[in-house]
């Protein structure tokens, strides 16, 4: 045992001696470094280049391929890493480090917030405006501290205390701030921004040159955490935060409770009467007692049912004979066949007694197949009085949501049900301000027969107009969208694009009521 220990010690001593001798030989025999190594071995270049690249990335906003999020995120990280290495040099660089840390935290917060449904509401709030303004001011102070820090480094090296590059960067930022302040969006803005960006790149290049001589005097600060580890840690935090956002804040908090079953004889009578008029029995069971009671004395019932697919269907190729009347040539034709149509929307109108003709309209939806992902849903209603032609608002906007689980029916009110005034962009007419009825809600993933309805009353204002009531149902098909938008926000943006996270179907109840008959369109 002793011999073995001695052997090990002896070997280790021989090995460390030989290592030291190898080190000495390397140091003695090393050839003169090539030019690129000489230029690259500096205490400041890496740190300063990172900080400057970070600033350049922070100052550009490219709205494609998620670059509006990726570039600032990379920029903030580079600024943080760059100024972290320079933080011991002087108090101005220390301030730059603190500011870049604040910027990173603020950016992480915003990036994570974007994975929740609350992001749009937050940015529209005072806190959101303050955060955006704060980020702008932080950048401004950062540039100022950078300018002062560079001057301090040059003073320390005995060089003229000038840092024109940083100074011009401050001026450029002031210019951009002024443009933002006056909301300048003239035709010349594109050219101005390009010129401004060239200006910033030139300023940054000059900033880097300013340290060419004095930079060797900079003391890099050691860190317990390597740049790579810090980057990894921040990325993991962002991923974890984002995952929490998508998992826990991707749908509305709904208050589901088992449906009350108590039914009075009066309501039962109304139910029987409505069924006799043709009101679908299944849908009748979904109405609240108040809505049911409002249908007392119903005169007529109009029902219109449509089924909508929320799948891609299958392509079928079939041979068709020619049809001269339809100018159809014989040949193979491709059609999309939907074996399953997941959503059923039923439009029901109940005529109520009164001095003036009045109808209670119901728009009922039912998921016959589980819709899969359930994030946020919305219903946009264009009621019969929407165009102010022939029909007037009779009030009584109501509705509820339902689903079944293990034989029990659960109900909830909508997360939001009411009128919203909003401005959307139309490719034909530009910005359009409208007021519509909206319902926003989330459905449970684990239920069956998720369903609900919206109802309102409309009164005749003038003779000769059809009842034309529209229901735009927007369903969120996938969790992945960045930033997260709610179905209602999507509709308010006026988007009908079916390739994104949302799919909207339009259903209309259109009929012309006369005293003799109902003409359904």
């Amino acid at each position, binding site marked *: 045992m002793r011999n073995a220990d001695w052997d090990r010690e002896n070997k280790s001593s021989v090995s460390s001696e030989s290592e030291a001798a190898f080190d000495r030989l390397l140091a003695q025999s090393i*050839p003169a470094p090539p*030019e690129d*190594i000489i230029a690259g071995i500096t205490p400041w270049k890496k740190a300063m280049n990172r900080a400057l690249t970070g600033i350049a990335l922070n100052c550009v906003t490219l709205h494609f391929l998620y670059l509006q999020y990726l570039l600032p995120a990379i920029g903030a990280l580079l600024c943080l890493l760059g100024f972290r290495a320079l933080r011991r040099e002087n108090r101005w660089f220390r301030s730059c480090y603190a500011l870049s840390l604040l910027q990173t935290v603020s950016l992480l917060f915003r990036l994570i917030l974007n994975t929740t449904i609350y992001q749009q509401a937050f940015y529209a709030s005072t806190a959101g405006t303050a955060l955006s303004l704060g980020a702008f001011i932080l950048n401004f102070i950062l540039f100022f501290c950078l300018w002062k820090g560079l001057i301090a480094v040059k003073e320390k090296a005995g060089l003229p205390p000038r840092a024109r590059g940083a100074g011009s960067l401050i001026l450029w930022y002031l210019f951009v701030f002024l443009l933002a302040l006056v909301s300048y969006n003239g035709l010349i803005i594109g050219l101005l921004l390009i010129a401004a960006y060239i200006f910033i790149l030139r300023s940054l290049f000059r900033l880097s040159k300013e340290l060419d001589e004095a930079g060797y005097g900079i003391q890099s600060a050691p860190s317990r955490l*390597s740049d790579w580890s810090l980057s990894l840690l921040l990325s993991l935090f962002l991923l974890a935060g984002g995952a929490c956002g998508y998992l826990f804040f991707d749908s509305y908090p709904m208050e589901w409770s088992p449906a009350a079953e108590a039914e009075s004889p009066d309501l039962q009578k109304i139910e029987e009467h409505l069924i006799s008029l043709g009101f679908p029995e299944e849908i009748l069971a979904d109405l609240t007692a108040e809505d049911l009671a409002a249908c007392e004395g119903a005169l007529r019932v109009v029902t219109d049912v449509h089924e909508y697919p929320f799948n891609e269907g299958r392509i079928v190729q079939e041979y068709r004979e020619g049809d001269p009347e339809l100018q159809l040539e014989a040949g193979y034709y491709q059609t999309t066949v939907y074996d399953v149509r997941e959503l059923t929307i039923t439009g029901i109108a109940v005529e109520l007694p009164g001095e003036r003709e009045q109808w209670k309209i119901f728009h009922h939806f039912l998921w016959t197949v589980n819709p899969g992902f359930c994030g946020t849903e919305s219903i946009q209603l264009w009621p019969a009085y929407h165009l102010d032609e022939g029909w007037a608002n009779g009030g009584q906007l109501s509705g509820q949501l339902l689903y079944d689980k293990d034989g029990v029916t659960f109900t909830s009110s909508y997360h939001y049900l009411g009128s919203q005034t909003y401005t959307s962009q139309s490719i034909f007419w530009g910005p359009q301000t409208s007021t519509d009825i909206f319902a926003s809600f989330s459905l449970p993933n684990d239920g069956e027969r998720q369903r609900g309805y919206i109802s309102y009353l409309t009164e005749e204002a003038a003779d000769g107009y059809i009842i034309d009531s529209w229901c735009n149902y927007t369903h969120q098909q996938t969790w992945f969208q960045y930033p997260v938008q709610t179905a209602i926000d999507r509709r308010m943006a006026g988007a009908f694009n079916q390739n994104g996270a949302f799919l909207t179907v339009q259903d209309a109840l259109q009929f012309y009521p006369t005293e003799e008959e109902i003409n359904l369109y």
Partner: protein
Amino acid sequence: MDNRKEQIQEIIRRIVSRDERGIEMLLTHYGPLMRYIIAPILSNPADQEECLSEIVTRIWYKIGLFDASRGSWNAWLTALTRNAALNYRRKEQALLKNRHPQEIPEDMASAAPTPEEKMLQAEQEEALNRALQKLSPREWTLFYRKYYYLQSTVQIAAELGMTERAVEGRLYRLKKKLQKLLGGEWHA
């Protein structure tokens, strides 16, 4: 870039014509670079300043040796500063040895090399050069920082944004790689 060239030419012209403002300019613009190279080799600040004075004197007298066609001003200045700092250290260690003959520093330079030793060293340099060609740019930087600039692990870690442990690990792997690349050509 042109400004920089003009500035170097101005410094050289002034030193060649024995104008002391040339030295002032040299210290203003290249003092930080020279100090950066000296600092890891000589730890004592007083030695650093004395060494810098020696280098400046050497430049004053040997400015004629600078040949722009053989390399940049920075490369020449770097080599000159490094060699001067190493000589300064050897001299200091030799003095220390004379005062305390029993203490022999490990990396103490030996007496002037014999012709055989010179030839062996040239062979070693060539072999090392060949091995260095097989390293990645990152490994080159690390290698030169450690063995040419003689920077400490702490300094390398701080300037490269790594932990000391990571630097040590990389240097260890780099040394093993070099040992393998040098193979039987080079024995310690």
